[in-house]
């Protein structure tokens, strides 16, 4: 920079604009990444609809989608495969959204819903209303209540709310253990066949999803994703510490509460539909921000990444055979490795 004649030419970033009332900066790399994810999601969706036993040709699939063609094909597409694929995409997106918000709130990649016991709480809630006290309330509500309770437990257990990320992880492990014990208690009361089904759900499974599930996760996404996006600017400020965030015009306690609620509800909706699928909420936001790369929460990119991850994993388990793994077992396996990798990175960082 030359003295006295500083460069004052403002380089306008790429903008998403509409007239005079909308102007959102968008990084070109984020756009490219989002386009890639949409293409991947489309590919996974098409493959999910076609692959399996029996497989469908492109023309048979096209006919069935239009409501023509054979009854078997129509049943396969409309009743079996399409709801399953859409549920996977929706639940994955909700988990990605939840993870992005939580990791930003806690300023910690480990502060994601599966690590801090939130998904375990949601399963306990679902088990409570589905098996222990059946008919108390709908399962989705039970999951949400369980997730909220677990979050409250972590909040109090850490002794400093969400302001102490390291302690949150430990408090989360404790809350997760309590929730898991409750789940086991619920299972022990069941007859064998019921317990078998429940165990599949508790691993995270998308088998047998119906349009009801699609409607639930679709409604949750349509409501929560815009809220998450709207909270983004405030979360970006919170990442710099409460004092500075407040000095810049945010209200830290209120923004944190709102973001926590959105994240908890998104995780609860996903758990209701797909069970406590591991790894997606943890990894999706991290993968998204490393691919772009970007600072601050990226709810939309994390949601897209989560959708592709979960739908892709579900497709893999389905291709493994008719009695294939529950998808959660696959994601948990990969997730364990990834979690260890993250922990090592964190420890390296703090020890230097």
């Amino acid at each position, binding site marked *: *920079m030359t003295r006295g004649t500083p460069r004052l030419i403002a380089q306008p*970033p790429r903008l998403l604009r509409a007239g005079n009332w*909308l102007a959102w900066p968008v990084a070109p790399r984020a756009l490219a990444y989002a386009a890639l994810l949409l293409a991947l999601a489309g590919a996974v969706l098409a493959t999910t609809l076609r692959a399996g036993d029996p497989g469908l040709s492109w023309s048979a699939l096209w006919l069935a989608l239009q409501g023509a063609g054979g009854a078997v094909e129509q049943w396969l597409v409309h009743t079996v495969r399409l709801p399953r694929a859409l549920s996977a995409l929706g639940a994955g997106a909700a988990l990605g959204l939840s993870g992005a918000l939580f990791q930003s709130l806690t300023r910690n990649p480990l502060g994601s819903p599966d690590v801090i016991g939130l998904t375990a709480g949601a399963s306990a809630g679902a088990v409570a209303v589905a098996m222990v006290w059946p008919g108390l309330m709908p399962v989705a509500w039970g999951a949400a209540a369980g997730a909220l309770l677990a979050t409250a437990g972590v909040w109090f257990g850490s002794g400093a709310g969400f302001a102490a990320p390291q302690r949150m992880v430990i408090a989360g492990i404790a809350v997760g253990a309590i929730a898991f014990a409750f789940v086991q208690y619920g299972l022990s009361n069941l007859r064998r066949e019921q317990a078998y089904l429940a165990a599949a759900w508790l691993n995270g499974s998308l088998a047998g999803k119906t349009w009801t599930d699609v409607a639930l996760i679709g409604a949750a996404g349509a409501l929560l994703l815009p809220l998450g996006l709207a909270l983004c600017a405030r979360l970006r400020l919170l*990442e*710099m510490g409460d004092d500075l965030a*407040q000095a*810049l015009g945010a209200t830290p306690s209120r923004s944190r509460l709102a973001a926590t609620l959105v994240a908890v509800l998104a995780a609860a909706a996903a758990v209701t539909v797909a069970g406590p699928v591991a790894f997606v909420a943890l990894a999706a936001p991290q993968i998204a921000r490393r691919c772009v790369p970007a*600072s*601050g929460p990226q709810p939309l990119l994390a949601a897209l990444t989560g959708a592709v991850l979960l739908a892709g994993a579900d497709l893999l388990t389905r291709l493994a055979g008719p009695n294939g793994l529950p998808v959660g077992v696959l994601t948990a396996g990969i997730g364990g490795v990834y979690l260890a990798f993250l922990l090592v990175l964190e420890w390296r960082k703090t020890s230097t």
Partner: protein
Amino acid sequence: MAQDLHLNDPADAPSALQLRQVSLSYGDTAVLRDLSLAVAPGAFTAVVGPNGCGKSTLLRVLGGALAPSQGQAFLDGASLAGLRRKAVARRLAYLPQNPVAPEMITVRDLVARGRYPHQTLLRQWSPADALAVEAALADTDLADLADHPVHTLSGGQRQRAWLALVLAQDAGIMLLDEPTTFLDIRHQIDLLELCARLQRAGRTLVVVLHDLNLAFRYADRVVMMRSGRIAAQGEVRQVVTEDAMRQVFDLECRVLPDPETGSPMVVPRRGGQG
């Protein structure tokens, strides 16, 4: 640092900040006791005092980050607690002592976060934002580093990046909590020169400083604190005396005119316990 400052005119004429009989305690510990203070518009006020005397707490109350247990803070005569946070942030900037740099953020993106009070949910960018960000980068001599990740910067560069953030905020009053900590003497001088230029351009500054001689050289007013109270306040050249230094810091010293500027210069005596 660049000689010319590219300030948009601070929207309002000189604003003033006031505390009236403010007390504040953390639990049972009183940190501020019955403290009244009027920040002169257009002045560069240094806040000095021994460790733990409540300087940072005073700044947090002035900045609205802490609500006092008793008494009130006023911005232009209106109670700070009753104003909308975003409206306050357009007039009053506050840089705390230990802000957290988000992961993987570039200098320009960090500075751009200072524009939040000027943005709305749907309009998160405007040409004025871009101008203010580039001007703040130029004023802090960071234009060449704008696209570097913050975590690769040196301590001094990082401190300047934070300062650029509050500059971009474009508020008439700036509160800075020990902005020169961790800086070597060269960077301390650069930063204080920048503060002096900001003052000449019409801003009001309240700055907590540790180095007394630099504080008295650059500031025109001083607030001396001890145990949560204001021990002395006023024009630097009138307030800073050997007596005041003894009362506030328990320090036996001589106060001589700075040969460079004529401002008071504190020279501690040997074995100088009070």
